[in-house]
């Protein structure tokens, strides 16, 4: 067992581009749930339209990548409006089911043969982000002892972490503005906000759009990161990851999702790496756990973690217990 290798793997996971991208999407979710109390279980749908909006603009309409990201954002705004109109007037639990269903509807639609000319159907899309990597200012890999990041990963990390931190900062400014106070009052007591003459529906819609836009940018970055897209990489499980990240860090805290994502990916890669080493060294007999089961163990661990967090520490690492006495009615 090489603990140093496990630890460096885990740290690389915690700082890598994926952690940054999930942090950004979780910042969006934090706007929805943490500040407005919207139970959005379809954040992955926003990521999907963002990713495909970007890739399709580049591949089918030959637009520059930057314009593609804007198209992705526009798609997310449209999705938020379409989704919000029927569901935002309803109780929170209805919104949860409607959003998860909507995300699945999108996934089915994007992988269907109808959409194949644009989305590539089940085969997906590839090689649309060359424009991004051409801008890479890093020329060589970074090598810090046990750590090494390729120039490609470095460039992505810089962009993704800046995006996540900027988004968190922007949300921080917004929620401390009068607008943010109304948002939180909607979360705390919708009727009270309404009786003070606030248009609750409009505020919820603005929150849904804003959080969705962050989701879309995260989706674009995810697509750029792997240079390939497939509808089946946008499964509902991604949304559950994001929820775990947000709650782990602390919902309704500006830095909650960022911290949550770092810790989440550290633990996840640690577990992965540890199990691989333990199976390799024969500490866990392969009859109990085969290397192919590690993925399943990881999901099961996320599930268990989410349960334990919600039962014993719903405020997460830096959350405020008082801020989260939510109920659906």
């Amino acid at each position, binding site marked *: 067992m090489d603990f140093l290798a496990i630890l460096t793997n885990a740290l690389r996971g915690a700082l890598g581009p994926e952690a940054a991208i999930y942090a950004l999407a979780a910042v969006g979710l934090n706007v929805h749930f943490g500040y407005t109390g919207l*139970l959005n*279980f379809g954040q992955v749908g926003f990521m999907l339209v963002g990713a495909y909006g970007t890739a399709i603009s580049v591949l089918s309409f030959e637009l520059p990548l930057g314009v593609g990201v804007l198209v992705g954002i526009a798609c997310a705004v449209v999705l938020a409006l379409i989704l919000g*109109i*029927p*569901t935002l*007037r*309803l*109780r*929170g*639990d*209805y919104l*949860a*089911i*409607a959003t*998860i*269903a*909507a995300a*699945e*509807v999108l996934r*089915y*639609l994007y*992988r*269907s*043969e*109808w959409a*194949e000319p644009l989305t590539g*159907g*089940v085969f997906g899309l590839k090689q649309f982000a060359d424009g991004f990597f051409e801008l890479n200012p890093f020329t060589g890999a970074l090598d810090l002892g046990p750590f090494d990041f390729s120039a490609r990963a470095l460039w992505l990390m810089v962009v993704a972490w800046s995006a996540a931190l900027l988004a968190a900062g922007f949300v921080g400014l917004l929620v401390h503005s009068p607008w943010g106070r109304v948002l939180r009052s909607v979360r705390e007591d919708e009727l009270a906000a309404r009786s003070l003459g606030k248009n609750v529906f409009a505020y919820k819609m603005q929150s849904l759009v804003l959080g969705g836009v962050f989701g879309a940018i995260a989706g674009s970055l995810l697509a750029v990161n792997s240079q390939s897209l497939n509808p089946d990489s946008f499964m*509902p*499980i991604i949304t*559950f990851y994001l*929820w*775990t990240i947000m*709650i782990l860090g602390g919902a309704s805290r500006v830095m909650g999702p960022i911290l949550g994502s770092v810790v989440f990916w550290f633990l996840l890669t640690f577990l992965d790496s540890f199990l691989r080493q333990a199976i390799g060294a024969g500490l866990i007999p392969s009859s109990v*756990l085969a290397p192919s*089961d590690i993925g*399943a*163990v990881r*999901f*099961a661990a*996320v*599930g*268990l*973690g*989410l*349960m*334990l*967090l*919600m*039962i014993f520490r*719903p405020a997460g690492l830096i959350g405020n217990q008082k801020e989260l*006495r*939510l*109920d*659906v*009615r």
Partner: protein
Amino acid sequence: MTPRLLAVLTALFLGVFLGPAAAAVASGHPAGMHGGPTLSSVAQDSEESLQGTLRGPDREAVSGVTVTVTQDGAEVGSTTTGDDGRWTVPVPGPGAYTVTLDTSGLPEGVAPRTVGGDVLDEVVVRPGASQGVIFQLGEGEPDDGTGGGGSFDWGRAAQLLVEGIKFGAIIAITAVGLSLVFGTTKLINFAHGEFVTIGAVAAFFLSTSPGNLPLVLAAVLAMVVAAVVSGGFEVAMWRPLRNRGTGLIQMFIVAIGLALLLRHVVLIVFGSRRRQYDEYTLQQAWDLGLFRITPRDLTITLLSFAIMLAVALMLQRTQIGKAMRAVNDNSDLARASGIDVERVILVVWILGGALAGLGGVFFGLTQAVYPEMGFALLLLMFAAVILGGLGSAYGAMIGALVIGVVSQMSTLWFPASLQYMWALLAMIIVLLVRPQGILGRRERVG
């Protein structure tokens, strides 16, 4: 009351299940009304078989296509591909066979990728082996023989309607539990789909190698397993959480975590492969004029309706059923009038778990057993429950039938890969025009 209720359900289950199924078995499994000359000639305990999964160019399963196996020009057996595209033809022994695909049954626009690709010669089956056969399908010219232009295919519509009712009935018995749990505890139980999977997987393990129980018995035991798991979580987790005053959103997220945990534990134990039960897999469909249905599917459909009827009778007539409705209406008032609310809730969980487990066995029989099946059904259950009205058991049943029929009938006009999408869209549209659902109580939902 609870043991009696379970006894009634079990008796009903055994009675109805053993009816047509036993008749079918008696006439020689796999049975057919017309004797099934091609199939009955196959030695029953032959180990060798040919099998495969028929998939179209989009990797979607192609169902209802006839596959015929011949040897030296003599027909050995034939079957039609199931909902998941799978087919199996037992063969009398090792040797070389010719496998032919009936291209007239393929959907429009799908054809063998190469000319003559519908006949595979010299497929060798080794002793004791189940030889896989792959037909490579690509996009071809639409079959001009059927003339799919303006005319509406009534035969196919009737067939799909029956399929839809069958599918809807399965969703209904699983969704009843989801709806009753919501009605009594206001918890949206995201882990309900996992009870479906656990039931199906438990029946699979009980009915295959070490135990080798008959599937009917395994299904009853699977109901018990799912009920114990469901009731166990109520006693060990949900009740303490409720007593602690945990918020509903918090519990909802706990349920999501539980669903992830259970699903992936099942995945580790069961593996990710889709598997079939070893009984009732190969049956020849009865031709009932407008549509065809296998004895197995007919049994499943009738049984599901019988269970729905039994649940309705229980809710209306028995004391525990009335107590459930009382708690559903207003749990404080129910408690004040002397109803043991905690006990009612426990019974609801046990009943919901058992029905979900049974639904899992049915779903596994008609499609396949795999760890994601519960989640695939869960979204349809949600759609059914919201369509019918959250908390109303009757609403869930009606909603489920609508969802089943919508998803199957949509394949008349739209690609089969989108069939679940229409079901979910139907739910979103209902939310738009009548958020409380078809039978839901008019209450504040916003």
